[in-house]
């Protein structure tokens, strides 16, 4: 039993949704690719124009639709293309993480980082860390939508 469980855990490949901002983090991810840095393929990227565009309901909906973790990434403070979008995102995600923790959902499943367009290496590191974290936490099935067909 225990060995079977161990195998299951090893085989678990998490589904992670990454909301990357168009101006910094998406370009950072692009740089990681063009620099041929190896990183896990678990993060599915959704490009948003700004990290401030990430409605906290996106995170809840991602969990409902089968994501095991969510990564939100934007420009460093002060570097935002829209001057202060990432500051607003920071408040929102901070509050949302606390709320999730209170509800009994591990707040580590939501991760926020700043990745600039020049930080391909950092992006790869972040993805590696996130994937490891979520692998340890296991699948997120607490309020996943039931399959409809």
């Amino acid at each position, binding site marked *: 039993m225990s060995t079977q469980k161990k195998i299951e855990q090893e085989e678990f490949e998490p589904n992670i949704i990454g909301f990357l901002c168009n101006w910094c983090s998406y370009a950072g991810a692009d740089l990681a690719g063009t620099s041929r840095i190896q990183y896990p393929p678990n993060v599915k990227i959704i490009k948003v124009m700004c990290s401030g565009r990430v409605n906290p309901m996106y995170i*809840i909906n991602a969990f*409902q639709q089968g994501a095991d973790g969510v990564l939100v990434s934007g420009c460093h403070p002060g570097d935002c293309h829209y001057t202060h979008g990432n500051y607003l995102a920071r408040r929102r995600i901070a509050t949302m993480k606390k709320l999730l923790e209170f509800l*009994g959902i591990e707040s580590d499943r939501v991760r926020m980082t700043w990745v600039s367009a020049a930080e391909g290496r950092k992006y790869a590191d972040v993805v590696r860390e996130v994937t490891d974290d979520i692998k340890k936490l296991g699948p997120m099935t607490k*309020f*996943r939508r039931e399959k409809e067909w």
Partner: protein
Amino acid sequence: MVENKELIKVIEETVSRDDVKYVIGYKRGTYGFQIKPAFAYSAKDAKEFFYSPLCSKNLAVYPLLEEKLPLRRGEEAEHKKIGIVVKGCDSRAIIQIIQEKGLEREDVVLIGIPCKGVIDPKKIEKRFPKQSKFVEVEENSNDEYILEIDGTNHKIPKEELLSDVCKSCEYPNPQLYDILIGDTEEEFQPEQFSRVDELEGKTIEERWEYWEKHFQNCIRCYACREACPLCYCKTCMVDLLEPQWVRRSVNLSENTAWNVMRAFHLAGRCISCGECERVCPVNIPLMELNKFVEKEVKEMFDYTAGLDTEEKPFLGSFRPDDPEDFIS
């Protein structure tokens, strides 16, 4: 304690003013411990107004429900005020709405009532079920509620019937008013909202078990939204079909999404009147979510809702030195 005679006099005076359209207050209901909202359009309507510890409803909902029809050509908008009877928490709701530009200060006349806490209708209903007539409840100076049912007098300690949020109320006096009835209550050191701390002491699995049990019961009647003075969006996100944020089906997944959404949309806005919890037909402890968010917002960002009409909204503003220890 607010004298009803004085209240009626003030309402008569207010509604007789030329610039006031109508005044919203409380009147006795038809049975049990139910109270109704009352609308006075002229001085003679003011007679049925009253105030007692049963008046738990938050009347700040009503000015935003008023339908404003499009104007005909050449017609000018009517600029008349609405009078509202407000307790401490209701006045904070009005401040918060003014802050968000939902109302203007000139639109309302606030008749402030210093509040000693209100009775939780669920608690009193449980104690004296199925009353076919309206029961008057009064508060005496020894922190007891006095009521008469079928010829027998009951004296009940205040603690037993008081609404849970009122025990941890920080602002019993109206924070914004035009007319104040009675003397202001003494500021007292409120208790902590103990249910939040209790939950925080539990492990993460126990907490999810707790909320799963409650969210499973949710029937998505949206009574919490309708009773909330700050849920006044013309189109609520939950009603949208394109994009459909929350599906119509009633199951754990969608119920969780709705309850998280409701709690999050009140982050930095909830003024803890406790109406959502009191109206919930399946007893979901919604105030625990609200109070927790309120506490965290205060700790992390030093922000309290509903105190200053000039302050910027919590989620629409930022400080460069906001905490970011969770970001790596």
